[in-house]
């Protein structure tokens, strides 16, 4: 009789106690995982903004015709922008407030450009859930603090567009912008 030479099988234990089959399982799962993850990611990532949405042009605003107490609306990145010409009383009101008492403490000066303090330029997007607050157009409600009022869930903003009452957590966002001349501004 020939001496029996047993073939190594996948069930054999290594010195460490693993079977060869365990290694095959792990290798298969790892190989499949390495393929699935990038494919899954591209399926998730396709929902992010596409290149044409991201290709954002900046917009130019002419503020020449906006009288004190008036405001204009513009659209930037699909979102409304409010440019408001504050009256001296509104500026005084905004400066009178004790900043430390605010939910989102900011001074009027932090929210406007030096020398152009009368121009309050903010996004018209309530920081609660994204409605457009009222108060930019003629005759709209301006809320308890004379600034903006969001009708969706009752957030009141003051004349520096700071949150004063209601559920919104933040002041209206100030977009990046620059004055090109005393009455021309570029947003974005």
């Amino acid at each position, binding site marked *: 009789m020939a001496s029996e030479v047993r073939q190594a099988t996948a069930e054999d234990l290594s010195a460490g106690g693993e079977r060869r089959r365990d290694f095959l399982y792990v290798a298969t799962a790892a190989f499949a995982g390495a393929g699935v993850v990038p494919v899954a990611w591209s399926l*998730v990532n396709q*929902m*992010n903004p596409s290149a044409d949405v991201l290709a954002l042009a900046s917009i130019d605003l002419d503020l020449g015709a906006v009288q004190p107490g008036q405001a204009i609306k513009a659209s930037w990145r699909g*979102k*409304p922008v409010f440019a408001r010409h504050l009256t001296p009383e509104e500026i005084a009101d905004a400066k009178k407030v004790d900043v430390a008492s605010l939910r989102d403490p900011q001074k009027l000066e932090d929210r406007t450009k030096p020398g152009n303090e009368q121009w309050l330029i903010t996004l018209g997007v309530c920081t609660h859930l*994204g409605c457009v607050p*009222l108060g930019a157009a003629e005759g709209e409600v301006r809320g308890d603090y004379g600034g903006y009022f969001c009708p969706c*869930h*009752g957030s009141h903003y003051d004349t520096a567009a700071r949150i004063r009452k209601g559920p919104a*957590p933040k002041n209206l966002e100030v977009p990046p912008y620059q004055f090109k001349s005393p009455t021309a501004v570029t947003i974005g």
Partner: protein
Amino acid sequence: MSFPWAKQYQPTSAVGKWVDERLPLPRFIHGALGPGYPTPKNLNAFYNFGVLAGVALVIQIITGVVLAMHFAADTRVAFDSVEHIMRDVNGGWMIRYMHAVGASFFFGVVYIHIFRGLYYGSYKPPREVLWMLGLVIFLLMMATAFMGYVLVWGQMSFWGAQVITGLFSALPLVGTAIQTWLLGGFSPDNATLNRFFSLHYLLPFVIFGVIILHVWALHIPGSNNPTGVDVKSEADTVPFHPYYTAKDFVGLGVYLIVFSAFVFFMPNSLGEPDNYIPANPLSTPAHIVPEWYFWPFYAILRAFTADFLGVPAKLWGVLAMFASILLLFLLPWLDTSPVRSNNYRPLSRILFWVFVVVALLLGVCGGKPAEEPWVRLSQILTAYYFAHFLIILPIVSKLEKTKPLPGSISEAVLAKYGKGGGAPVAQPAE
């Protein structure tokens, strides 16, 4: 999976036998909805609403598939294509009204179905998975209804999309990125409309799949019943067909009469007129409200107006709104009373009706503008909503002295209708 006395399926024809040996689909129907499914004999009209919900889904799918043949998911023409359906497509107005009213009715029927389950303790062991699958269906319905509403691309569609995706922006750190990801942009736009159309078409079929699991889970222990007492013998049951198929058809007839009354005589009474104004990203309607079936949850969302415990008001609102539904998943473990039906739980029964009133009042608050007294009232009601499940129910279910349960369903039925042989005996004609 069924009771031992369930009628076995016996194919009568050669063809039936041939099919049964290859794909026993008739056998499956026989056991699920036919004579092979023994059902407690004391089910009342509230037990119609599961079947009605299924019919409502089928109506939504059929009318929806037809509407999709005429709808265009592009922000420039979506609103106009809906008006095209209303004015130009042959019978389009009826199909669309059936779909819009159908959504409201689907929710109405499902709410009654849920409250039926709450009253009779249908979430209790061994039906916890059945209950949770139902909640999954409810969540899927909410997502589907919301996305369908956006497709019209009216003012409420647009601002609803803004507000609901804005919910996710409340999450710390990743919130804004998630909102942008959901919208495919920085505000609701074409990308949003297209993906919502795709998902709105998909999700009803997912719901259909979960319904199959829901019905499967129902058939393991069988239906609960108004006494909450388990089926003990064959005398407690009747075969589903013809007894409950007949009863369900009566209920379906009533349902379709009411449904038709709305479709044909007051199709817009359940909707918001603002949604007949095309979407305008630069102007928010004075009063954004969702459809009525979301009002209670909307009231909970808006009830949080101040920061506390270092968490912003906005995040509290969002967490509370999601928690108000997710909490229901824990209900089988919050209510530990071994007695299912509130008919035998004197205190829980009162608390159930208090909860119904609270839920209805939350609905009223959610439909009102965000001003007093509605904000304060929503806060009180929201507090009660959570207290009901987290404090009151667990304590009451431990302390309550329940009434004695009947020995069997048959015993309860006989006690109610006399010993003359079950159902009330008709008076002989004079």
